[in-house]
């Protein structure tokens, strides 16, 4: 979603045209369940866990993941959202995306923070998020969960939990919604 929004803004512009389905709604649901199990396995339960969704694409996914974790562990999970617009390294190089809400539920000192995003691409958003998180405290550990890893990394960042690895071309666009994951292209709309 976030990626599509970004591509819709100038100078990109255009319309997202889906080409094929990469994951169905059922597939994403199963991936979320598996990631939830992996998180609990790796961290030996849900103690000190804070799940942070990256605005805007990761937020929906975060709530679904937190819900699954709560069902599995029968305990409330701390959930937050993070907007990294002010931490990006390309401020001024491209138009600003409208700011979305940042909500951090608690001090992050000694917490296990799981960052959640829909698509991992260049890794620059995650880099910005790492900087932002350090402003809220020193987490004992920061992990990264993404639905799609599409490659083309520009910084040395690696996800801990992946829904699906999909090799892509740079100009392709991945769209993650509740109905599944689509791959397609942005098609320029001619200005009248």
């Amino acid at each position: 979603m976030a990626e599509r929004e970004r591509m819709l803004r100038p100078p990109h512009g255009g319309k997202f045209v889906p080409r094929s389905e990469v994951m169905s709604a059922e597939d994403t649901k199963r991936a979320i369940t598996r990631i939830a199990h992996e998180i609990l396995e790796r961290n030996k339960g849900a103690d000190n866990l804070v799940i942070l969704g990256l605005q805007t694409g990761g937020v929906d996914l975060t709530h679904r993941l937190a819900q699954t974790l709560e069902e599995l562990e029968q305990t409330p999970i701390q959930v937050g959202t993070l907007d990294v617009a002010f931490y990006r390294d390309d401020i001024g190089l491209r138009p600003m995306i409208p700011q979305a809400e940042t909500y951090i539920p608690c001090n992050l000192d000694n917490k296990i923070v799981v960052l959640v995003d829909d698509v991992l691409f260049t890794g620059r958003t995650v880099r910005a998020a790492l900087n932002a998180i350090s402003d809220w405290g020193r987490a004992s550990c920061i992990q990264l969960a993404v639905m799609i890893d599409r490659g083309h990394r520009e910084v040395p960042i690696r996800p801990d939990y992946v829904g699906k690895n999909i090799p892509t071309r740079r100009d392709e666009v991945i769209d993650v919604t509740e109905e599944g994951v689509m791959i397609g292209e942005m098609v320029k709309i001619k200005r009248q």
Partner: protein
Amino acid sequence: MTQPKHLLSIEDLGLDGIREIMRLSDSFADLANRPIPKVPALRGKVVANVFYENSTRTRLSFESAIKRLSADVMTFVVANSSVNKGESLKDTANTLLELGADALIVRHSSAGVPMQIASWVDVPVINAGDGCHEHPTQALLDCYSISKLHKKLRRKSKNSAISFNGLVVGIVGDILHSRVARSLVTALNLLGAEVVLAAPRTMLPPAFESWDVVVSNDFDSLLGKLDIVYLLRIQSERMKVVSIPSLREYTTWYGLSMKRVKMLQKDALIMHPGPMNQGVEITPEVAQLPNCIVGEQVANGVITRMAVLFRLLVP
């Protein structure tokens, strides 16, 4: 929307601009509560505070906003500058640019100086008060404070465009000498609020008839219908001719006392741009009331100025 280059007056900014600044302010609002209250958004930028006139809160508020955005600040204070050796306005502006300033924040006792500087330089210029003309960031922070704190507006949904329709704002005091009033009336009119000016005739500017306002010199009869009472400072330093018989007479007719507060609506807010002359336009007891939001105005000033700086310095 086109990118504004400067912030010189509220009129230039327009309704869309005001709304955009208020929306952007929201994303800076919780910053003060963070363990590290800074974002790296303007790292490497240099902002110069150019103050030809005294100021506590505006200058420190801008300085705080600049620092929270991780930019660097240069402060020019006329008292210990080369202006005393005859340096001209243009020289000063050029010197600051040569020293690497990416934006100039200008306050001057003559109206029009920020506009003049803006015509010389190609970096953003922010008007921080020019004579009796405009003080746009004050109006923006006041509108932001109203939108956040007045009960009538707080209930509205988060995503709807901000509008002050149905809100009655009374501006009281020395409107003639007030740049705050000039900017605020324009901003409130754009946002759709009803504006009432309460002042002795001698404290009204000749041009007020062209404003979309109601004028009254009977403060007491107004109180019951006001949602906001906006008090202005009696600016004795700007009065070239004496416009009121005495401060005591002013206090009797226009000073906000506990007796007058009791005549206000329950949810009414009391505002003042500061510095307050306690005992003249407001009594010390009223200044302590919880619905006197002068403190919140100062805090919102930093947030709003961050939004303005971010808007102008990020293309």
